[in-house]
């Protein structure tokens, strides 16, 4: 279903791209949805990205989740027990990071270019807010951060595939796991020719809690005393109902 819909949408996009007004744009692209709703039954979502180029070239798509300050802690042995010891704060660690490309990314762009555009898990800029402190063990903590996020499926290891349908029309798919953080995601689509980024198109993607779950979360954080009271009443009522119900049996 979504493939058909995407193909139709892509056809419209390419028609627009080939039309008179859009002639000047080398890359036109969009997403299958601009809002990912986390509802009570949320188990993850698939985002389909598609678009058209004005000629041959390679396409790289980077999806970045909202950056959050994140602490990485290292365990050490203390009297035989594993205890959290050293820690490092990373100021802007993306909560999600995924890449899709039409070829392996290091065949498309040189390392310094990948670094500059933060394309690929190894090229994300992850640094403590004051890099002077603990210069020497940053790589280990950085690696641990990436590893932990990859374990949760939040940082894609291998880049996904951008598939070209013909020479100009492309599409890619990216999976968001159930654990995603809410907020505004950034979808960047790079058009690369001869080792140079020709153009970048940036599209926002909103991931937000919708419905009951969202209401509960907001309620718990905004009116926490009242929320606690409701929780107590609910629990007490459940206990009372159970005792009353089983008394009759």
């Amino acid at each position, binding site marked *: 279903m979504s493939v058909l819909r995407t193909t139709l949408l892509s056809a419209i996009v390419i028609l627009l791209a080939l039309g008179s007004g859009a002639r000047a744009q080398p890359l036109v692209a969009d997403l299958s949805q601009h809002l990912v709703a986390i509802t009570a039954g949320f188990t993850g979502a698939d985002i389909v990205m598609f678009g058209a180029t004005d000629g041959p070239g390679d396409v790289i798509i980077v999806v970045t989740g909202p950056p959050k300050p994140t602490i990485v802690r290292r365990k050490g042995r203390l009297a035989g027990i594993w205890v959290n010891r050293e*820690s490092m704060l990373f100021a802007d660690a993306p909560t999600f990071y995924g890449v899709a490309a039409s070829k392996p990314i290091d065949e498309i762009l040189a390392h310094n270019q990948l670094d500059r555009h933060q394309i690929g898990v190894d090229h994300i800029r992850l640094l403590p807010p004051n890099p002077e402190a603990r210069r020497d063990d940053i790589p280990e903590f950085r690696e641990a951060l990436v590893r932990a996020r990859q374990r949760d499926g939040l940082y894609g290891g291998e880049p996904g595939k951008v598939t070209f349908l013909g020479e100009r029309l492309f599409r890619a798919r990216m999976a968001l796991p159930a654990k995603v953080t809410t907020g505004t995601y950034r979808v960047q689509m790079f058009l690369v020719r001869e080792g140079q980024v020709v153009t970048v198109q940036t599209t926002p993607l909103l991931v937000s809690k919708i419905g009951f*779950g969202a209401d*509960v979360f907001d309620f*718990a954080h905004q009116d*926490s005393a009242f929320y*606690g009271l409701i929780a107590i009443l*609910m*629990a007490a009522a459940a*206990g009372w109902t*159970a005792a009353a119900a089983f008394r009759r049996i």
Partner: protein
Amino acid sequence: MHVYLPIAELSVNWLTLLVIGSGVGFLSGLFGVGGGFLMTPLLIFLGVPAPVAVGTGAAQILASSVSGVLAHWRRQNVDVQMGLALTAGGFVGSALGIWIFTLLRQAGQVDLVIRICFVLFLGGVGGLMLVESARTWFRQATSGVRKRKLHEHNWLHGLPFKLRFRSSKLYISALLPLAVGFAIGILTAIMGVGGGFILVPAMIYILGMPTQMVVGTSLFQTLFVAANVTILQSITNQTVDVMLALLLIVGGVIGAQLGTRFGARLRGEQLRILLAALVLAVGLKLAFDLFTTPDDFYSLAPEGLG
């Protein structure tokens, strides 16, 4: 069959939660303890963050203790006076416990302290109970039923502010139940347990209460302390997940009723040996985890939280 837990922020199969709830409920009905000491580690094992497991555990304990107290109330097995004295101590203790919990969370050590507390208390209480119940069983098997004094007199009976607790047939210092309640209150807040597995032995061995009054009175006290912890955790740490609590409660209350019925057929010291073995097993498992080398030495946390 997945349900999204809004505070824990993860999707879990709701059947799993019902099964865990009813399994723990069955054991708590059987042994007359809240079952929090099993619930919290199981939730952590499922992937629920430890702070959320602790906060939500309090709400679940509240429900099971309400259900239990009503059953014991009808049989007049609740010493209200003693329960209120324990509760007064418990309120102060749980407020202090929440404060400690928040500090630990900021220091990044809350997981460790929860685990260590579990190991120490489960190991200690389980071991003592196993020895005591085995001895009772052995003595009864060899020399038949021997008449025992209500309780032993020791220095604890020399403390001031003595009060008469009629339903328990006790004349002891009011400081004793206050202190016991205070200690249990701290544990409830930090470990997300009702403390029944500590409170029950403490009431028998320290306060010297008659065994038939102990379970009902312990549940009575747990009810108030768990309600207090639920609301304090909601306000201070926002770690009570009502969705998770509701699913655990539904499973728990059904399991507890079945457990109570099943428990009526077993002898007292047999029950205590089984409970002791269970408590020890959980404690050993947690102790084992503390000492084994972790798969990854590193862990992540959002800034400011544990």
